[in-house]
Structure formats: structure tokens, C-alpha cells
């Protein structure tokens, strides 16, 4: 991929140029880039951009793709409406096991 204007994170509308600027400023991991730019924080939670950013990191630091640290996969795996979760709580009638 050469084009600097290619979109790497579609949810947050981030170009390859933005991601490269982050890496050049010293980011070593997907997690750091995520925190600087919001890459991977949108509705798809990084399903598309995660690997694309990993490729950029691997090529910049000359390391195998497997060595790029993956960010923590955070629940829920799929967006869920708050109302459904709220009702689940009331149905368990104080299912307060915390």
C-alpha cells in the first residue's frame, strides 16, 4: 500500500498518513496508536484496521507480523443495546454478584 490517503480505519476515518505519522512519532504498538487516534475504537472495534495497522508497524520496525502486539479484545464482541442489558439485569432480580 503506497497511497497516503488510503483509509485504514473506516469507522474513525483515519488515513494511512495519520497512522504513519503516529508510528514515526514513536508509537510501537496498535494500542498506542489506538489511544492517540481512536483507530479501532469505532463500531467495528478494529476488525478491519487492526491487521492493516499491524502491517504498517511490521514494515516500519522490520519485524515479522506475528511479533506485533495485538490489542486486548474487549467485550461485547458485537454491539448490544443498553436496554437489552438493563432488562437482563432486572430479570435476574438483583443478579448482583459483584
Amino acid at each position, binding site marked *: 500500500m503506497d497511497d497516503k490517503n488510503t483509509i485504514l480505519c473506516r469507522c474513525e476515518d483515519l488515513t494511512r498518513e495519520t497512522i504513519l505519522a503516529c508510528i514515526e512519532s514513536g*508509537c*510501537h*504498538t496498535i*494500542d*498506542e496508536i489506538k*489511544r*492517540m487516534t*481512536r483507530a479501532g*475504537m*469505532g*463500531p467495528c*472495534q478494529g476488525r478491519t484496521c487492526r491487521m492493516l495497522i499491524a502491517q504498517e508497524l511490521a514494515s516500519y520496525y522490520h519485524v515479522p507480523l506475528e511479533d506485533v502486539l495485538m490489542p*486486548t479484545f*474487549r*467485550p*461485547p464482541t458485537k*454491539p*448490544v*443495546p*443498553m*436496554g437489552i*442489558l*438493563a432488562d*437482563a*439485569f*432486572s430479570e*435476574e432480580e438483583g*443478579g*448482583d*454478584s*459483584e
Partner: protein
Amino acid sequence: MKKGYDVIIIGGGIVGCATAFELAKRGITDVLLVEKGYLTSGATGRCGAGIRQQWGSELNARIAMESTHLFENLEEYTGYNHSCGLHQGGYLLVAYTEKEWAQFQENLEVQHRLGIDSRAVDLKEAREIVPCLNTEGMFGATFCAKDGHADPFHCTQAYAQGARRMGVEFLTYTEVTGLQVKSGHIAAVETTNGTFEAKTVINCANVRAPELAKMVGEDIPVTSERHQALVTEPVAPLMDCMVMSFHRSYYVQQTPHGSFVMGIGPKEEPSFNFHSSWQFLEKNCAVICEALPVLRKLNVVRQWAGQYDLSPDRNPIIDEAKEAAGFYSVCGFSGHGFMVAPRIAILMANHLAGQDDTMDIRMFSKERYQTGKLLLEPAVV
């Protein structure tokens, strides 16, 4: 890298980075900051980043107010070329019991003495401020328009980059594994990337601060408690301020980006648990949807967990080790360390630079748990 430094700071959260910046500003630039992950990988990167001046004790209200003034110009203050994301949409603190409502009146008096622009609002006005608020069960609320939140990643970067420009060095992905003491004075810091001599060490490792202090024989009464948060998909602006309740223990805000960030404060056993739980997900949604029913339709996109470094009186501890002079611990922020970090960093830097401060650093000593001079705070989640 050099063999030694005047000051080594352990921990690259907002407290460590702000302290590095304030030291450098005072001419103390022979400083190394050691962080085991990346900057903001601890509580700072997991927090709600809420900033409120509506405290009940004069001390907290003052530290928060002075910190807020620093947040208001942080970009210029640190020379950062990105926005730090400060949004002052206010905090609406809601009272669900008569006792809480009475306490709020006392808190307002404390705030007004300091010149904080907060006020009591009735339920009608509360609904004007937050039209989608369900005020059932509420007695009233207080509001301060200058409260708000900022971007914790960029605030920390702002301090770090400013410090770096003045000569501070940063060593990330490096863990402090040991501390060396010689003749009652801190002498060196052992890390996974070598040992560095140091005349002064500042322990800003948050929930990990007690175990580091233990290495020089200090007991710090701080425990780690898991707190979780979640974020929804972004939507058009629905409310501008943070809504927070102590009694029902929740906070919820809409970020400038449109998503809602929220959390509840369950009582948990001390742990270093970083896992998210489905119990939190459900209970949080039940509690928040009752206060803001419109949120029922919003999708939760992500949840996460972090730690509060709880001290016995829920206020920070700043202490020099008895058996290792020059080793300072700055921890115990008990869930509100982000909003006070700018002012606490100044206090610490003034102390090390031998400069006067209008605040007496000694009152933060852990000695207060022996003398009984606790820093009590009625307005804390």
C-alpha cells in the same frame, strides 16, 4: 543511556508525566521516567477523565480548581500541538436522599468560599440542563458549568512531550524490578533494561506503588480495586454535562465525539483484576438507563476495566520513605487522580526544587493515619 540521573520517576501515567514536566520547568532536567508499558497504559488510559471542582472538602475543591485552571490552557502551558480535548460542559451532581441533599448545601458553601461557580438547581432546572434526565427519586442537584472532562491520552502526551523537550528521558516497556539503598538513602533503580543510579526516586506507579515502596521497607496503606467502564456508539449531542450520583454510585457523560462513557462503582475485594465482567455490563445499564431512559436504544461497543488506588481516607499519599531518604511515593488517588494531577505535580516539584508552595505537602504524609489528621471528603464515589 547514562549511568545515573538526579531524579528517576517510576510510572508513565498522568501523575508521573506531569511531575517530570514540572521538575524540568524548575530546571531539574536530569530526569529519567521509567514505564513498564507505554505512557497511559495504566489507570490514566482507562479513566473517565472527568474534572470536577464540586468537592466537599476545601482541600480537594482547591486542588481540583487549581488543576482545572491548568487544564484550561494545557496545550499552551506544555507547548503541545494537538488539542487536549478539554470540554467544560459542567457536572450535574444529583441527590437521591434528603441527607445527601443537605450535604450538597454544605459542599456548595465550601466551593463558594474558594470562588468556584457552582449552584443548587431544582428538578425543573436539572431537566433544562439535561432534557433526557429522569428526575424521579431525586431531591435536587448542584451544577458547576466549569467542570468537564479532557482527553487523558493527549493530556499525558502533552506533559511528556513538554518534559522531553526540556531534556527529560523516557524509557518505556521497561519495568522497575528492584531498588538499591545505601546508608539510608536511595541509590539506584534496577530495571529490565539495566540499573541506573539516582539521587531521588519518585514512585508514581499507582496501584503498584505499595509493592515498590515495600522494596525499601515502606508500608503504604493503598489497595487496588477494580472499576469498570463502558462506551457506546456515537450519536448526535443529547447532553453536554456529566451526570453523577454518589448515592447510586454512577457517572455518565457524552464525549465531544458523540459516544457515551459511563461507569458504576461497585464494592469489590482488592485485586489486580483487569478483566471485564458481564455482571458490570448488565448492572451498569440498568442503573444508567433508569436515570437516562433514552440511552436504552444505544449500542454498547466496548467495555474495559482499570484499578483505583484506594487509600484509607480516599485521598492521595505523598511520603518520603523512612529508611530510604530521597524515595518518594505519590499514590492513593482513590479514583480521582486524573483531575488533581496537574496541581499535585506542582506541589511535588516545588518540594524537590526547594521552592515555596501555598500548600503544605506534609499534610499528605501517611503519618496522618497515626495522628488521626485524616483528609476527609464527603463527596466521593
